[in-house]
Protein backbone atom coordinates (compact mmCIF):
# COMPACT_ATOMS: atom_id res chain seq x y z
CA UNK A 1 0.00 0.00 0.00
CA UNK A 2 1.23 3.48 -0.89
CA UNK A 3 2.49 5.21 2.18
CA UNK A 4 1.16 8.04 4.20
CA UNK A 5 3.11 11.10 5.28
CA UNK A 6 6.81 10.78 5.93
CA UNK A 7 7.31 14.36 7.10
CA UNK A 8 8.97 15.15 10.41
CA UNK A 9 8.04 13.23 13.52
CA UNK A 10 6.37 16.23 15.09
CA UNK A 11 3.91 16.93 12.26
CA UNK A 12 1.13 14.58 13.45
CA UNK A 13 1.30 16.21 16.84
CA UNK A 14 0.90 19.65 15.32
CA UNK A 15 -2.44 18.46 13.92
CA UNK A 16 -3.32 16.65 17.12
CA UNK A 17 -2.31 19.36 19.56
CA UNK A 18 -5.55 21.40 19.70
CA UNK A 19 -7.51 18.28 20.46
CA UNK A 20 -4.95 16.82 22.85
CA UNK A 21 -4.62 20.02 24.86
CA UNK A 22 -8.39 20.32 25.32
CA UNK A 23 -8.71 16.58 25.90
CA UNK A 24 -6.11 16.79 28.66
CA UNK A 25 -7.77 19.83 30.23
CA UNK A 26 -11.43 18.85 30.02
CA UNK A 27 -11.37 15.07 30.00
CA UNK A 28 -8.24 13.67 31.59
CA UNK A 29 -7.73 16.35 34.24
CA UNK A 30 -11.37 16.29 35.46
CA UNK A 31 -11.29 12.50 35.70
CA UNK A 32 -8.08 12.54 37.73
CA UNK A 33 -9.27 15.47 39.82
CA UNK A 34 -12.62 13.78 40.40
CA UNK A 35 -10.85 10.66 41.62
CA UNK A 36 -8.56 12.77 43.81
CA UNK A 37 -11.33 14.62 45.62
CA UNK A 38 -13.28 11.37 46.04
CA UNK A 39 -10.55 10.30 48.48
CA UNK A 40 -11.27 13.17 50.87
CA UNK A 41 -13.93 14.17 53.26
CA UNK A 42 -14.83 17.70 54.18
CA UNK A 43 -16.37 18.55 57.54
CA UNK A 44 -17.95 21.97 57.52
CA UNK A 45 -15.45 24.73 57.07
CA UNK A 46 -12.43 22.71 58.11
CA UNK A 47 -9.90 21.73 55.41
CA UNK A 48 -10.62 18.38 53.75
CA UNK A 49 -9.14 15.26 55.36
CA UNK A 50 -7.85 12.26 53.49
CA UNK A 51 -10.11 9.27 54.06
CA UNK A 52 -8.89 6.82 51.42
CA UNK A 53 -11.65 4.73 49.93
CA UNK A 54 -14.17 5.51 52.65
CA UNK A 55 -16.49 7.37 50.24
CA UNK A 56 -16.57 4.28 48.04
CA UNK A 57 -17.49 2.05 50.94
CA UNK A 58 -20.16 4.58 51.79
CA UNK A 59 -21.45 4.57 48.19
CA UNK A 60 -21.90 0.80 48.25
CA UNK A 61 -23.87 1.00 51.48
CA UNK A 62 -25.83 4.17 50.74
CA UNK A 63 -29.44 3.09 50.34
CA UNK A 64 -30.38 6.09 48.18
CA UNK A 65 -27.56 5.49 45.71
CA UNK A 66 -28.12 1.73 45.57
CA UNK A 67 -31.82 2.22 45.10
CA UNK A 68 -31.20 4.63 42.21
CA UNK A 69 -28.97 2.08 40.49
CA UNK A 70 -31.50 -0.71 41.00
CA UNK A 71 -34.30 1.51 39.72
CA UNK A 72 -32.36 2.22 36.56
CA UNK A 73 -31.47 -1.47 36.22
CA UNK A 74 -35.16 -2.28 36.24
CA UNK A 75 -35.82 0.65 33.92
CA UNK A 76 -33.23 -0.69 31.50
CA UNK A 77 -34.63 -4.22 31.51
CA UNK A 78 -38.20 -3.11 30.83
CA UNK A 79 -37.85 0.07 28.81
CA UNK A 80 -34.71 -1.08 27.00
CA UNK A 81 -36.42 -4.28 25.82
CA UNK A 82 -39.52 -2.46 24.65
CA UNK A 83 -37.56 0.25 22.93
CA UNK A 84 -35.06 -1.98 21.13
CA UNK A 85 -37.84 -4.42 20.22
CA UNK A 86 -39.86 -1.61 18.63
CA UNK A 87 -36.76 -0.15 16.98
CA UNK A 88 -36.04 -3.56 15.44
CA UNK A 89 -39.57 -3.95 14.08
CA UNK A 90 -39.51 -0.43 12.63
CA UNK A 91 -36.04 -0.97 11.13
CA UNK A 92 -37.17 -4.24 9.49
CA UNK A 93 -40.18 -2.45 8.05
CA UNK A 94 -38.27 0.46 6.53
CA UNK A 95 -35.53 -1.86 5.28
CA UNK A 96 -37.95 -3.93 3.20
CA UNK A 97 -38.24 -2.26 -0.19
CA UNK A 98 -41.69 -3.71 -0.81
CA UNK A 99 -43.18 -1.68 2.04
CA UNK A 100 -44.90 1.63 1.49
CA UNK A 101 -44.22 5.05 3.07
CA UNK A 102 -40.77 3.96 4.23
CA UNK A 103 -39.28 7.45 3.91
CA UNK A 104 -42.16 8.99 5.80
CA UNK A 105 -41.95 6.55 8.71
CA UNK A 106 -38.18 6.83 8.89
CA UNK A 107 -38.42 10.61 9.19
CA UNK A 108 -41.33 10.72 11.62
CA UNK A 109 -40.01 8.09 14.03
CA UNK A 110 -36.56 9.64 14.08
CA UNK A 111 -37.64 13.27 14.57
CA UNK A 112 -38.07 13.19 18.40
CA UNK A 113 -34.33 12.50 18.58
CA UNK A 114 -33.71 16.07 17.33
CA UNK A 115 -35.57 17.61 20.27
CA UNK A 116 -33.61 18.52 23.41
CA UNK A 117 -34.48 15.98 26.12
CA UNK A 118 -35.32 18.83 28.52
CA UNK A 119 -37.88 20.15 26.07
CA UNK A 120 -39.31 16.65 25.58
CA UNK A 121 -39.56 16.43 29.35
CA UNK A 122 -41.46 19.72 29.59
CA UNK A 123 -43.75 18.81 26.68
CA UNK A 124 -44.68 15.42 28.06
CA UNK A 125 -44.91 16.85 31.57
CA UNK A 126 -47.51 19.34 30.31
CA UNK A 127 -49.34 16.59 28.46
CA UNK A 128 -49.35 14.47 31.63
CA UNK A 129 -50.64 17.23 33.89
CA UNK A 130 -54.38 16.93 34.54
CA UNK A 131 -55.39 20.38 33.33
CA UNK A 132 -53.49 20.39 30.02
CA UNK A 133 -53.54 16.73 29.07
CA UNK A 134 -55.04 15.60 25.79
CA UNK A 135 -55.15 12.09 27.27
CA UNK A 136 -57.76 12.88 29.88
CA UNK A 137 -60.43 13.34 27.23
CA UNK A 138 -59.23 10.27 25.31
CA UNK A 139 -59.20 8.03 28.40
CA UNK A 140 -62.32 9.74 29.70
CA UNK A 141 -64.28 8.10 26.88
CA UNK A 142 -63.59 4.79 28.60
CA UNK A 143 -64.36 6.22 32.01
CA UNK A 144 -60.69 6.28 32.98
CA UNK A 145 -59.03 9.22 34.67
CA UNK A 146 -55.38 8.23 35.01
CA UNK A 147 -52.91 10.35 36.92
CA UNK A 148 -49.69 10.06 34.94
CA UNK A 149 -47.70 11.95 37.54
CA UNK A 150 -48.66 9.97 40.63
CA UNK A 151 -45.84 8.23 42.45
CA UNK A 152 -47.10 4.90 41.19
CA UNK A 153 -47.17 5.81 37.51
CA UNK A 154 -44.17 8.13 37.30
CA UNK A 155 -41.78 5.25 36.54
CA UNK A 156 -43.90 4.27 33.52
CA UNK A 157 -44.51 7.85 32.45
CA UNK A 158 -40.79 8.53 32.30
CA UNK A 159 -40.29 5.27 30.38
CA UNK A 160 -42.73 6.55 27.83
CA UNK A 161 -40.83 9.84 27.42
CA UNK A 162 -37.50 8.06 27.03
CA UNK A 163 -38.97 5.59 24.55
CA UNK A 164 -40.50 8.42 22.53
CA UNK A 165 -37.12 10.16 22.40
CA UNK A 166 -34.88 7.23 21.54
CA UNK A 167 -36.77 4.61 19.50
CA UNK A 168 -35.98 6.39 16.24
CA UNK A 169 -32.30 6.67 17.05
CA UNK A 170 -32.04 2.96 17.74
CA UNK A 171 -34.10 2.25 14.65
CA UNK A 172 -31.54 4.13 12.54
CA UNK A 173 -28.63 2.20 14.08
CA UNK A 174 -30.35 -1.11 13.29
CA UNK A 175 -31.46 0.13 9.88
CA UNK A 176 -27.86 1.03 9.01
CA UNK A 177 -26.88 -2.50 9.98
CA UNK A 178 -29.61 -3.95 7.79
CA UNK A 179 -28.62 -1.73 4.87
CA UNK A 180 -25.08 -3.03 4.94
CA UNK A 181 -26.25 -6.60 4.27
CA UNK A 182 -25.53 -7.47 0.62
CA UNK A 183 -28.86 -7.62 -1.25
CA UNK A 184 -27.71 -10.68 -3.25
CA UNK A 185 -28.17 -12.78 -0.12
CA UNK A 186 -31.90 -12.11 -0.25
CA UNK A 187 -32.07 -12.93 -3.95
CA UNK A 188 -30.44 -16.30 -3.51
CA UNK A 189 -32.58 -17.07 -0.47
CA UNK A 190 -35.69 -16.22 -2.51
CA UNK A 191 -34.55 -18.57 -5.26
CA UNK A 192 -34.17 -21.29 -2.62
CA UNK A 193 -37.81 -20.68 -1.71
CA UNK A 194 -37.34 -18.72 1.52
CA UNK A 195 -40.27 -16.63 2.69
CA UNK A 196 -39.94 -13.10 4.08
CA UNK A 197 -40.02 -14.44 7.59
CA UNK A 198 -37.21 -16.91 6.89
CA UNK A 199 -35.09 -14.15 5.40
CA UNK A 200 -35.55 -12.14 8.60
CA UNK A 201 -34.95 -15.09 10.89
CA UNK A 202 -31.97 -16.67 9.15
CA UNK A 203 -30.27 -13.79 7.34
CA UNK A 204 -31.18 -10.38 8.69
CA UNK A 205 -31.23 -11.04 12.43
CA UNK A 206 -27.95 -12.96 12.65
CA UNK A 207 -26.18 -10.37 10.51
CA UNK A 208 -27.24 -7.34 12.52
CA UNK A 209 -26.15 -8.74 15.88
CA UNK A 210 -23.25 -6.21 16.01
CA UNK A 211 -25.66 -3.30 15.45
CA UNK A 212 -28.00 -4.76 18.02
CA UNK A 213 -25.20 -4.98 20.58
CA UNK A 214 -24.21 -1.42 19.76
CA UNK A 215 -27.79 -0.26 20.35
CA UNK A 216 -27.94 -2.18 23.65
CA UNK A 217 -24.64 -0.74 24.86
CA UNK A 218 -25.72 2.81 23.96
CA UNK A 219 -28.95 2.13 25.85
CA UNK A 220 -27.07 0.94 28.94
CA UNK A 221 -24.90 4.07 28.91
CA UNK A 222 -27.91 6.31 28.28
CA UNK A 223 -30.19 4.73 30.88
CA UNK A 224 -27.76 4.98 33.75
CA UNK A 225 -27.26 8.65 32.89
CA UNK A 226 -30.92 9.67 32.82
CA UNK A 227 -31.29 13.07 34.45
CA UNK A 228 -33.13 15.68 32.40
CA UNK A 229 -36.61 14.13 32.30
CA UNK A 230 -36.98 13.43 36.04
CA UNK A 231 -35.28 16.75 36.84
CA UNK A 232 -37.82 18.67 34.75
CA UNK A 233 -40.74 16.72 36.20
CA UNK A 234 -39.61 17.65 39.72
CA UNK A 235 -41.35 20.99 39.30
CA UNK A 236 -44.62 19.30 38.35
CA UNK A 237 -44.79 16.44 40.80
CA UNK A 238 -42.82 14.75 43.54
CA UNK A 239 -39.81 12.91 42.08
CA UNK A 240 -37.59 11.13 44.55
CA UNK A 241 -33.96 12.33 44.40
CA UNK A 242 -32.87 8.71 44.25
CA UNK A 243 -34.93 7.99 41.17
CA UNK A 244 -31.77 8.00 39.01
CA UNK A 245 -28.08 7.92 40.02
CA UNK A 246 -27.38 11.21 38.26
CA UNK A 247 -30.21 12.96 40.07
CA UNK A 248 -28.85 11.63 43.35
CA UNK A 249 -25.27 12.62 42.56
CA UNK A 250 -26.37 16.08 41.41
CA UNK A 251 -28.41 16.61 44.58
CA UNK A 252 -25.58 15.39 46.78
CA UNK A 253 -23.17 17.82 45.14
CA UNK A 254 -25.27 20.91 44.58
CA UNK A 255 -27.96 20.76 47.25
CA UNK A 256 -25.90 19.27 50.04
CA UNK A 257 -22.50 20.53 48.91
CA UNK A 258 -20.88 17.12 49.39
CA UNK A 259 -18.67 17.10 46.29
CA UNK A 260 -16.35 14.43 47.65
CA UNK A 261 -19.03 11.82 48.09
CA UNK A 262 -20.67 12.87 44.80
CA UNK A 263 -17.36 12.41 42.97
CA UNK A 264 -16.99 8.90 44.40
CA UNK A 265 -20.52 7.97 43.33
CA UNK A 266 -19.91 9.38 39.83
CA UNK A 267 -16.90 7.09 39.49
CA UNK A 268 -18.82 4.08 40.79
CA UNK A 269 -21.56 4.89 38.28
CA UNK A 270 -18.99 5.04 35.47
CA UNK A 271 -17.63 1.63 36.53
CA UNK A 272 -21.08 0.06 36.79
CA UNK A 273 -22.01 1.36 33.32
CA UNK A 274 -18.72 0.14 31.92
CA UNK A 275 -19.08 -3.31 33.51
CA UNK A 276 -22.62 -3.85 32.20
CA UNK A 277 -21.62 -2.66 28.72
CA UNK A 278 -18.68 -5.09 28.76
CA UNK A 279 -20.94 -7.97 29.76
CA UNK A 280 -23.10 -7.35 26.70
CA UNK A 281 -20.09 -7.11 24.42
CA UNK A 282 -18.58 -10.33 25.78
CA UNK A 283 -21.94 -12.04 25.73
CA UNK A 284 -22.15 -11.45 22.01
CA UNK A 285 -18.55 -12.52 21.45
CA UNK A 286 -17.65 -9.03 20.31
CA UNK A 287 -13.97 -8.86 19.63
CA UNK A 288 -11.71 -5.85 19.46
CA UNK A 289 -10.03 -5.46 16.13
Amino acid at each position, binding site marked *: MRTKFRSGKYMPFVFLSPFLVLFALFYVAPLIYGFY*ISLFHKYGLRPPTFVGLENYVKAFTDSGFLSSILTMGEFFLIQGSIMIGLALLFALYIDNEQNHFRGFFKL*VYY*IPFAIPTVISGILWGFMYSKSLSPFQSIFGVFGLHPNFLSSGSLFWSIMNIVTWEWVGYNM*IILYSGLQSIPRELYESAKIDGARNFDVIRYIKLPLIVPSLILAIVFTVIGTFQI*FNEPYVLQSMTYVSTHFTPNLYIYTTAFSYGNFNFAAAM*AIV*LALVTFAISMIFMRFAGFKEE
Partner: protein
Amino acid sequence: MDTKKSLYSPSTLIIMTLMFVASAYFLLPFFWIIVASTKSDSQLFSTNPLWFTSPFNFLSNLKVVSSYDNAILWRWFLNSLIYAGSVSAGTTLISAMAGFAFSKYDFKLKNVLFYIILGTIMVPTTALVLPIYLLMHGLNLINTYWAVILPSLVNPFTVYLMRIFWMKEFPNELIDAAHVDGASDFAIFFRIGLPLVRGGLATVALFSFVNTWNNFFLPLVVISKSNLYPLTLGLQVWTSITTTSVGRGAPPYGAINMGILISIVPLILAFIFLRRYWQSGLSSGAIKG
Protein backbone atom coordinates in the same frame (compact mmCIF):
# COMPACT_ATOMS: atom_id res chain seq x y z
CA MET B 1 -44.35 -10.83 -10.08
CA ASP B 2 -46.69 -11.22 -7.16
CA THR B 3 -45.68 -7.98 -5.45
CA LYS B 4 -49.05 -6.42 -6.29
CA LYS B 5 -50.78 -9.17 -4.38
CA SER B 6 -48.53 -8.95 -1.33
CA LEU B 7 -48.95 -5.16 -1.17
CA TYR B 8 -52.62 -5.44 -0.50
CA SER B 9 -52.73 -8.58 1.60
CA PRO B 10 -54.54 -8.21 4.94
CA SER B 11 -51.37 -8.62 6.99
CA THR B 12 -49.63 -5.87 4.99
CA LEU B 13 -52.56 -3.57 5.60
CA ILE B 14 -52.62 -4.32 9.32
CA ILE B 15 -48.89 -3.69 9.66
CA MET B 16 -49.12 -0.46 7.70
CA THR B 17 -52.01 0.71 9.88
CA LEU B 18 -49.95 0.00 12.99
CA MET B 19 -47.07 1.98 11.51
CA PHE B 20 -49.42 4.93 11.01
CA VAL B 21 -50.70 4.61 14.59
CA ALA B 22 -47.08 4.73 15.75
CA SER B 23 -46.56 7.85 13.60
CA ALA B 24 -49.44 9.53 15.38
CA TYR B 25 -47.74 8.74 18.69
CA PHE B 26 -44.46 10.28 17.56
CA LEU B 27 -46.14 13.36 16.12
CA LEU B 28 -48.60 13.96 18.97
CA PRO B 29 -46.36 16.18 21.15
CA PHE B 30 -45.51 18.32 18.10
CA PHE B 31 -49.15 18.71 17.22
CA TRP B 32 -50.00 19.47 20.83
CA ILE B 33 -47.40 22.24 21.09
CA ILE B 34 -48.50 23.80 17.80
CA VAL B 35 -52.09 23.88 19.04
CA ALA B 36 -51.03 25.14 22.48
CA SER B 37 -48.98 27.96 20.96
CA THR B 38 -52.17 29.43 19.47
CA LYS B 39 -53.99 29.65 22.79
CA SER B 40 -54.12 32.15 25.60
CA ASP B 41 -53.63 30.79 29.10
CA SER B 42 -57.35 30.66 29.79
CA GLN B 43 -58.06 28.95 26.47
CA LEU B 44 -55.31 26.46 27.25
CA PHE B 45 -57.13 25.25 30.34
CA SER B 46 -60.68 25.39 29.06
CA THR B 47 -60.64 24.13 25.46
CA ASN B 48 -59.94 20.83 23.73
CA PRO B 49 -56.16 20.32 24.02
CA LEU B 50 -56.03 18.72 20.58
CA TRP B 51 -57.77 21.33 18.51
CA PHE B 52 -57.55 25.00 17.64
CA THR B 53 -59.95 27.53 18.99
CA SER B 54 -60.79 31.12 18.26
CA PRO B 55 -59.65 33.77 18.80
CA PHE B 56 -56.32 32.63 17.48
CA ASN B 57 -53.65 33.83 19.89
CA PHE B 58 -50.48 32.79 18.11
CA LEU B 59 -49.32 36.35 17.46
CA SER B 60 -50.25 37.58 20.90
CA ASN B 61 -48.23 34.72 22.44
CA LEU B 62 -45.34 35.72 20.22
CA LYS B 63 -45.74 39.28 21.52
CA VAL B 64 -45.87 38.08 25.11
CA VAL B 65 -42.73 35.99 24.77
CA SER B 66 -40.95 38.86 23.03
CA SER B 67 -41.69 41.31 25.80
CA TYR B 68 -41.64 39.18 28.95
CA ASP B 69 -38.65 40.06 31.15
CA ASN B 70 -37.17 42.40 28.49
CA ALA B 71 -37.39 39.81 25.74
CA ILE B 72 -34.96 37.58 27.60
CA LEU B 73 -36.09 34.57 25.58
CA TRP B 74 -34.53 36.06 22.46
CA ARG B 75 -31.38 36.63 24.45
CA TRP B 76 -31.43 32.90 25.28
CA PHE B 77 -31.99 32.13 21.63
CA LEU B 78 -28.93 34.22 20.78
CA ASN B 79 -26.95 32.50 23.56
CA SER B 80 -27.89 29.09 22.21
CA LEU B 81 -26.71 30.21 18.77
CA ILE B 82 -23.44 31.47 20.25
CA TYR B 83 -22.83 28.28 22.24
CA ALA B 84 -23.83 25.90 19.46
CA GLY B 85 -22.24 27.93 16.66
CA SER B 86 -18.85 28.35 18.27
CA VAL B 87 -18.71 24.77 19.56
CA SER B 88 -19.72 23.47 16.16
CA ALA B 89 -17.08 25.49 14.30
CA GLY B 90 -14.37 24.71 16.84
CA THR B 91 -15.13 21.01 17.18
CA THR B 92 -15.27 20.53 13.42
CA LEU B 93 -11.82 22.04 12.87
CA ILE B 94 -10.25 20.32 15.88
CA SER B 95 -11.74 16.93 15.00
CA ALA B 96 -10.80 17.28 11.34
CA MET B 97 -7.19 17.96 12.34
CA ALA B 98 -7.07 15.12 14.86
CA GLY B 99 -8.79 12.70 12.47
CA PHE B 100 -6.29 13.69 9.78
CA ALA B 101 -3.36 12.92 12.08
CA PHE B 102 -4.80 9.56 13.11
CA SER B 103 -5.55 8.45 9.57
CA LYS B 104 -2.67 9.88 7.53
CA TYR B 105 0.40 9.67 9.75
CA ASP B 106 2.24 6.89 11.49
CA PHE B 107 3.65 7.79 14.84
CA LYS B 108 4.57 6.24 18.14
CA LEU B 109 1.71 5.19 20.43
CA LYS B 110 -0.81 6.11 17.72
CA ASN B 111 -3.08 3.14 18.36
CA VAL B 112 -2.81 3.33 22.13
CA LEU B 113 -3.71 7.00 22.06
CA PHE B 114 -6.59 6.42 19.67
CA TYR B 115 -8.12 3.66 21.77
CA ILE B 116 -7.78 5.70 24.96
CA ILE B 117 -9.68 8.54 23.28
CA LEU B 118 -12.28 6.15 21.90
CA GLY B 119 -12.71 4.49 25.29
CA THR B 120 -13.64 7.78 26.92
CA ILE B 121 -16.87 7.84 24.90
CA MET B 122 -18.16 5.57 27.66
CA VAL B 123 -17.42 8.00 30.50
CA PRO B 124 -20.74 9.32 31.85
CA THR B 125 -21.03 13.10 31.72
CA THR B 126 -21.59 13.46 35.47
CA ALA B 127 -18.16 12.00 36.16
CA LEU B 128 -16.77 14.85 34.03
CA VAL B 129 -19.13 17.72 34.75
CA LEU B 130 -18.74 17.62 38.52
CA PRO B 131 -14.95 18.12 38.52
CA ILE B 132 -15.28 20.49 35.53
CA TYR B 133 -17.49 22.66 37.70
CA LEU B 134 -14.82 22.75 40.40
CA LEU B 135 -12.07 23.46 37.87
CA MET B 136 -14.11 26.25 36.25
CA HIS B 137 -14.73 27.61 39.70
CA GLY B 138 -10.99 27.66 40.38
CA LEU B 139 -10.36 29.38 37.04
CA ASN B 140 -13.09 31.97 37.74
CA LEU B 141 -14.91 30.92 34.60
CA ILE B 142 -18.26 30.09 36.17
CA ASN B 143 -20.96 32.25 34.56
CA THR B 144 -19.03 32.89 31.37
CA TYR B 145 -19.60 31.63 27.84
CA TRP B 146 -16.27 29.81 28.10
CA ALA B 147 -17.57 27.51 30.85
CA VAL B 148 -19.95 25.92 28.35
CA ILE B 149 -17.91 26.27 25.17
CA LEU B 150 -14.49 24.98 26.24
CA PRO B 151 -15.51 21.56 27.65
CA SER B 152 -17.92 21.01 24.74
CA LEU B 153 -15.12 21.38 22.18
CA VAL B 154 -13.67 18.00 23.14
CA ASN B 155 -15.59 15.20 21.56
CA PRO B 156 -13.98 11.77 21.11
CA PHE B 157 -16.83 10.63 18.91
CA THR B 158 -16.34 13.35 16.29
CA VAL B 159 -12.62 12.56 16.13
CA TYR B 160 -13.57 8.95 15.49
CA LEU B 161 -16.03 10.05 12.79
CA MET B 162 -13.53 12.33 11.06
CA ARG B 163 -10.92 9.59 11.03
CA ILE B 164 -13.37 7.39 9.13
CA PHE B 165 -14.14 10.17 6.64
CA TRP B 166 -10.44 10.85 6.03
CA MET B 167 -9.81 7.16 5.42
CA LYS B 168 -12.73 6.86 3.03
CA GLU B 169 -12.62 10.14 1.12
CA PHE B 170 -8.96 11.09 0.92
CA PRO B 171 -6.73 8.69 -1.05
CA ASN B 172 -3.20 8.46 0.30
CA GLU B 173 -1.78 8.72 -3.25
CA LEU B 174 -2.80 12.37 -3.27
CA ILE B 175 -0.26 13.07 -0.55
CA ASP B 176 2.67 11.96 -2.69
CA ALA B 177 1.39 13.83 -5.70
CA ALA B 178 1.02 16.99 -3.65
CA HIS B 179 4.45 16.58 -2.09
CA VAL B 180 5.99 16.29 -5.53
CA ASP B 181 4.36 19.62 -6.33
CA GLY B 182 6.04 21.03 -3.23
CA ALA B 183 2.91 21.44 -1.12
CA SER B 184 3.38 21.58 2.65
CA ASP B 185 1.42 19.34 5.02
CA PHE B 186 -0.75 22.30 5.97
CA ALA B 187 -1.49 23.13 2.36
CA ILE B 188 -2.44 19.50 1.76
CA PHE B 189 -4.76 19.55 4.77
CA PHE B 190 -6.46 22.86 4.06
CA ARG B 191 -6.47 23.14 0.26
CA ILE B 192 -6.75 19.55 -0.91
CA GLY B 193 -8.00 17.65 2.11
CA LEU B 194 -10.82 19.68 3.60
CA PRO B 195 -12.76 20.06 0.34
CA LEU B 196 -12.62 16.28 -0.13
CA VAL B 197 -14.02 15.48 3.32
CA ARG B 198 -16.69 18.20 3.27
CA GLY B 199 -19.42 15.58 3.80
CA GLY B 200 -17.70 14.59 7.02
CA LEU B 201 -17.25 18.21 8.04
CA ALA B 202 -20.97 18.85 7.54
CA THR B 203 -21.87 15.76 9.55
CA VAL B 204 -19.62 16.69 12.45
CA ALA B 205 -20.69 20.35 12.36
CA LEU B 206 -24.38 19.40 12.46
CA PHE B 207 -23.83 16.76 15.13
CA SER B 208 -21.99 19.09 17.49
CA PHE B 209 -24.30 22.02 16.80
CA VAL B 210 -27.35 20.00 17.79
CA ASN B 211 -25.56 18.39 20.72
CA THR B 212 -24.66 21.80 22.13
CA TRP B 213 -28.04 23.37 21.35
CA ASN B 214 -29.68 20.49 23.25
CA ASN B 215 -27.22 20.39 26.13
CA PHE B 216 -28.70 21.01 29.54
CA PHE B 217 -26.62 19.43 32.26
CA LEU B 218 -23.40 21.39 31.69
CA PRO B 219 -25.12 24.83 31.50
CA LEU B 220 -27.23 23.92 34.52
CA VAL B 221 -24.08 23.36 36.52
CA VAL B 222 -21.81 26.17 35.30
CA ILE B 223 -24.30 28.96 34.47
CA SER B 224 -26.52 30.64 37.05
CA LYS B 225 -26.87 34.13 35.53
CA SER B 226 -30.10 34.24 33.61
CA ASN B 227 -28.73 36.41 30.80
CA LEU B 228 -26.23 33.66 29.95
CA TYR B 229 -28.75 30.81 29.86
CA PRO B 230 -29.18 28.79 26.70
CA LEU B 231 -32.79 28.16 25.64
CA THR B 232 -32.96 24.72 27.27
CA LEU B 233 -32.00 26.03 30.69
CA GLY B 234 -34.10 29.18 30.39
CA LEU B 235 -37.22 27.27 29.45
CA GLN B 236 -36.71 24.76 32.24
CA VAL B 237 -36.38 27.61 34.74
CA TRP B 238 -39.53 29.28 33.40
CA THR B 239 -41.44 26.04 33.59
CA SER B 240 -40.43 25.40 37.17
CA ILE B 241 -41.40 28.96 38.20
CA THR B 242 -44.78 28.74 36.52
CA THR B 243 -45.68 25.22 37.62
CA THR B 244 -44.60 25.62 41.22
CA SER B 245 -45.86 29.12 41.99
CA VAL B 246 -49.23 30.75 41.64
CA GLY B 247 -47.76 34.14 42.38
CA ARG B 248 -47.68 37.16 40.11
CA GLY B 249 -44.79 37.67 37.76
CA ALA B 250 -44.42 34.05 36.74
CA PRO B 251 -44.11 33.62 32.98
CA PRO B 252 -47.47 32.77 31.39
CA TYR B 253 -47.93 29.34 29.78
CA GLY B 254 -48.40 31.15 26.48
CA ALA B 255 -44.82 32.41 26.70
CA ILE B 256 -43.43 29.00 27.67
CA ASN B 257 -45.26 27.20 24.88
CA MET B 258 -44.14 29.75 22.32
CA GLY B 259 -40.60 29.49 23.71
CA ILE B 260 -40.68 25.71 23.29
CA LEU B 261 -41.83 26.11 19.71
CA ILE B 262 -39.06 28.63 19.02
CA SER B 263 -36.47 26.29 20.52
CA ILE B 264 -37.43 23.30 18.37
CA VAL B 265 -38.29 24.87 15.01
CA PRO B 266 -34.64 25.36 13.95
CA LEU B 267 -33.90 21.75 14.92
CA ILE B 268 -36.81 20.34 12.97
CA LEU B 269 -35.89 22.39 9.90
CA ALA B 270 -32.26 21.28 10.18
CA PHE B 271 -33.44 17.73 10.65
CA ILE B 272 -35.62 17.67 7.57
CA PHE B 273 -33.30 19.50 5.21
CA LEU B 274 -30.04 17.98 6.39
CA ARG B 275 -31.23 14.47 7.19
CA ARG B 276 -28.63 12.95 4.88
CA TYR B 277 -25.97 14.12 7.35
CA TRP B 278 -27.84 13.07 10.48
CA GLN B 279 -27.94 9.56 9.22
CA SER B 280 -24.45 9.34 7.82
CA GLY B 281 -23.08 10.26 11.24
CA LEU B 282 -24.93 7.46 12.89
CA SER B 283 -24.29 4.85 10.26
CA SER B 284 -20.57 5.51 10.22
CA GLY B 285 -20.69 5.20 13.98
CA ALA B 286 -22.54 1.94 13.73
CA ILE B 287 -20.15 0.32 11.32
CA LYS B 288 -16.76 -0.26 12.80
CA GLY B 289 -14.13 1.82 11.00
